[in-house]
């Protein structure tokens, strides 16, 4: 990060830091207070910058531009290296460009009732799972920063260490850490600037994708009965601290069929479970667990398996064992619980 430059530009003044500071006065000067300031900054600031994503020894430099206008969030995150992939949220759609694959995914959104606006819902219940602490203030790229640690109390979840800019409350550096303190993933801003306004042009893709394969759902506002996945899904024996926070039926880009989307959360980490009908070609012999495929997506874990003739995809920013345990807890209606290879029930 030798070349790191953080500049809170004069334009930031137009955002009304004075009034913002006044509102912050009600926030405690403790770890929770700083996390809330950061949450507020992320939810209200217009900013753009460059950050480095490091995980598993791989480093990628990305650019981000983020604008909040009323209730709408516009954002563009793009790779400055390699693949040229970029993800843009604008005008009610989330569009992911994969130039290396010549594929574009379009998700209509946000999904009412699912899009969370709170950063860290660390309520009393979550205190059983995480411990908050503030470490000695330091500097990141020449900026004074508060260091807040969210430490997991077991190995079912990851924790965070966040370096929060003293002046703007923006996160300058974020680490995802295992319960043993191992850094699983790190994001560090090398450039960050705040803006009063950001033009729409900043959210245009750099790639011309006219001849790419576009995958989007037909965007029906309701899912018809014939599209509904059969059965009602529930979880029995979830990992400690996790509970069902959302249950919806939706269409995914390119899927062409409705999937049940269940969301489990412990107040900080979340795991999505997608269930869709997909009978296997050859029935499994009785007592044989279904095969499962685990994939890492950055620090998140994704498990694909099958339960009672349904394809189940579970993904979340938690250790693989937790994703596996949540997928393993699924059961359809009142029938017998589906068996997932390696599934752990607690």
């Amino acid at each position: 990060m030798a070349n790191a430059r953080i500049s809170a530009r004069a334009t930031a003044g137009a955002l009304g830091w004075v009034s913002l500071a006044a509102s912050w006065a009600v926030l405690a000067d403790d770890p929770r207070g700083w996390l809330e300031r950061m949450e507020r900054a992320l939810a209200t600031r217009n900013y753009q910058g460059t950050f480095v994503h490091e995980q598993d020894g791989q480093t990628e430099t990305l650019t981000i531009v983020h604008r909040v206008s009323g209730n709408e969030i516009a954002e563009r995150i793009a790779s400055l290296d390699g693949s040229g992939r970029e993800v843009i949220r604008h005008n009610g759609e989330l569009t992911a460009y994969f130039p290396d694959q010549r594929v574009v995914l379009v998700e209509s959104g946000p999904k009412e009732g699912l899009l969370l606006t709170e950063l860290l819902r660390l309520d009393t219940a979550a205190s059983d799972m995480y411990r908050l602490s503030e470490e000695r203030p330091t500097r990141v790229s020449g900026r004074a920063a508060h260091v807040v640690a969210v430490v997991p109390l077991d190995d079912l979840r990851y924790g965070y260490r966040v370096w929060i800019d003293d002046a703007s409350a923006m996160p300058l550096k974020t680490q995802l850490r295992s319960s043993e303190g191992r850094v699983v993933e790190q994001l560090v801003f090398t450039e960050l600037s705040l803006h009063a306004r950001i033009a729409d042009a900043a959210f245009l893709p750099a790639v011309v994708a006219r001849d790419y394969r576009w995958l989007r759902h037909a965007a029906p506002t309701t899912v018809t009965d014939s599209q509904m996945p059969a059965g009602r899904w529930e979880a029995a024996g979830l990992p400690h601290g996790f509970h069902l926070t959302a249950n919806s039926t939706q269409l995914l880009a390119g899927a062409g069929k409705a999937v049940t989307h269940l969301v489990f959360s412990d107040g900080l980490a979340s795991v999505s479970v997608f269930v869709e009908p997909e009978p296997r070609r050859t029935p499994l012999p009785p007592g044989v667990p279904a095969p499962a495929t685990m994939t890492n997506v950055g620090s998140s874990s994704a498990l694909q398996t099958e339960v009672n003739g349904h394809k189940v995809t579970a993904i979340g920013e938690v250790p693989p064992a937790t994703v596996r345990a949540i997928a393993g807890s699924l059961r359809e209606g009142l029938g017998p619980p589906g068996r997932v290879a390696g599934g752990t029930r607690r």
Partner: protein
Amino acid sequence: MNQDERASQLSAMFDGELPAAECELLSRRLARDEQLRAVWSRYSVIGAALRAEPVAQVRPDFARRVSAALAGGSARTRVRRGRVLRGAALGGAVAAGVAGMAILLLRNGLPQHDEALTAYVPTVHRLALPAAAAVTRPATARGSAEQVSYVVPPAGSVNNLAMPAVLAEYVVAHSEVSSPLARRSLIAALIASESVQPTPALPFNVTAPDTAPVNGAAQADGQR
């Protein structure tokens, strides 16, 4: 790829010795990598190179100077401004990166074009860039001053592309319900990780070899 390797690749491309496939990748990187574009700009070689004009010989110390520039060295060449401007106006995948250079240089505190550089216009080895695949965004998209070009993979290389997107759609959908920090991490991983390709060549009912279940009881369909 480290800086030295990239410098070597860049000089090889200047010398016309880089394989076509690598030229394509490097062009793509040049279109997006500000540091690399700055190097190109310093030596004002992009335009001539992409124009494929008949040229003089590349100066023998060119590769060394490119390496020095990548390493943050001070090797510079004085040039006439006219050549810089002319180079910046050129089309083509890499040249587009130069079009917005003034803005980028200002932002990064790199030498402005006044200071510049232009010096010598090397010439040209015709680069093996896949011209047919080079796409330039319409000038109206962001204004001609920031026109961005991009070299896309050849149209024929699209075969096994659907499967990675299959997992990607779940990642995108999950990002919608994640906390802001986790969402950014997910999107960054989706962008950065070309490994978002679960089992691209296999149907769902087959398990990849490296995904043995914890209890070891499950096997891929074909292995039972």
